[in-house]
């Protein structure tokens, strides 16, 4: 059972860390855009 928990946790942690990192990168970049065009486009 601990193997199952470990496997699920490993997958969850990896996805969570990567998601957090990607979203944060996007947010930082959007914030440094000139005012008036605060979108990623």
């Amino acid at each position, binding site marked *: 059972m601990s193997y*199952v928990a470990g496997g699920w946790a*490993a997958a969850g942690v*990896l996805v969570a860390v990567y998601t957090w990192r990607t979203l944060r*990168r996007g947010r930082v970049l959007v914030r440094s855009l000139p005012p008036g065009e*605060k979108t990623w486009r």
Partner: protein
Amino acid sequence: MTVHKGTANQLTRVLGAGSLVTVALTALFGLWLTPPDAVQGQLVRLIYVHPAAATACYVGFGLCALASLAYLWPRTRSRRWDRLAAASAEVGVVFCVITLATGSIWGRGSWGVWWTWDARLTLTALLCAVFLGYLALRRTGGNPESRALTSAIVAVVCVALVPIDHYATSWWTTLHQGDTLMRANPLIHGSQLYTMLLSFVAVGLVFSWLVVHRYRVEVLEDRFEEEGFAVAIAERRAEASAAVQDRPAESAVVGPGPAVAASSSSAGSEMGRDGEVSE
């Protein structure tokens, strides 16, 4: 007018919400509601993570190769394909690591070893290493067009080598291991099957959600590069007139017009700028 935060919009919100719901459902069914397997026992619950992650990994690498091909084909050449290749390769590597980690844990549980030279495992590890190299190449900077071209070539070759790697690893492992570690594929049925299908949906949603976000990060970075470039051209042009104005001012009034248009003396322009890129 909504002020978007980050790289999100309606599409990613839907995708993100869908991912959360399906992942939660998969966890609920996979961890609690489905029965343990007759052969594998509780370990079977890893089947709701591992195969879906492996598929996502292969889809990511395949998508990267297809996007790279589209970039290399002159008629469809567009920075979009380059960005898609970058995004899908990176997400693919994340799922590749997940595949290796869960596979290793599963192996430890069912065979008692963290690692075995199983053909598919070895192939996945090789692919992971190859695409880590690809990502390292992408990070080396330089001219974006050159980087896009060289990395597209590398990505296509990496994937073209998959058949060779496949034969190499499978011939090799059949040679090395008399005792087959091939699991007698446990017959899954009923709730287990549906949960497994659900896990594919969940991972698929998470995958596309991440790729969309990652793609947009790439768009933003490109944009910063281009805007930085426009500023750089303006600065570069300003160097010429700055050199004229930098000269010791004869009077407080800096006269525009002829003085600016006239060629600057070599002595005057020698000051101020030095040691720039002249290669």
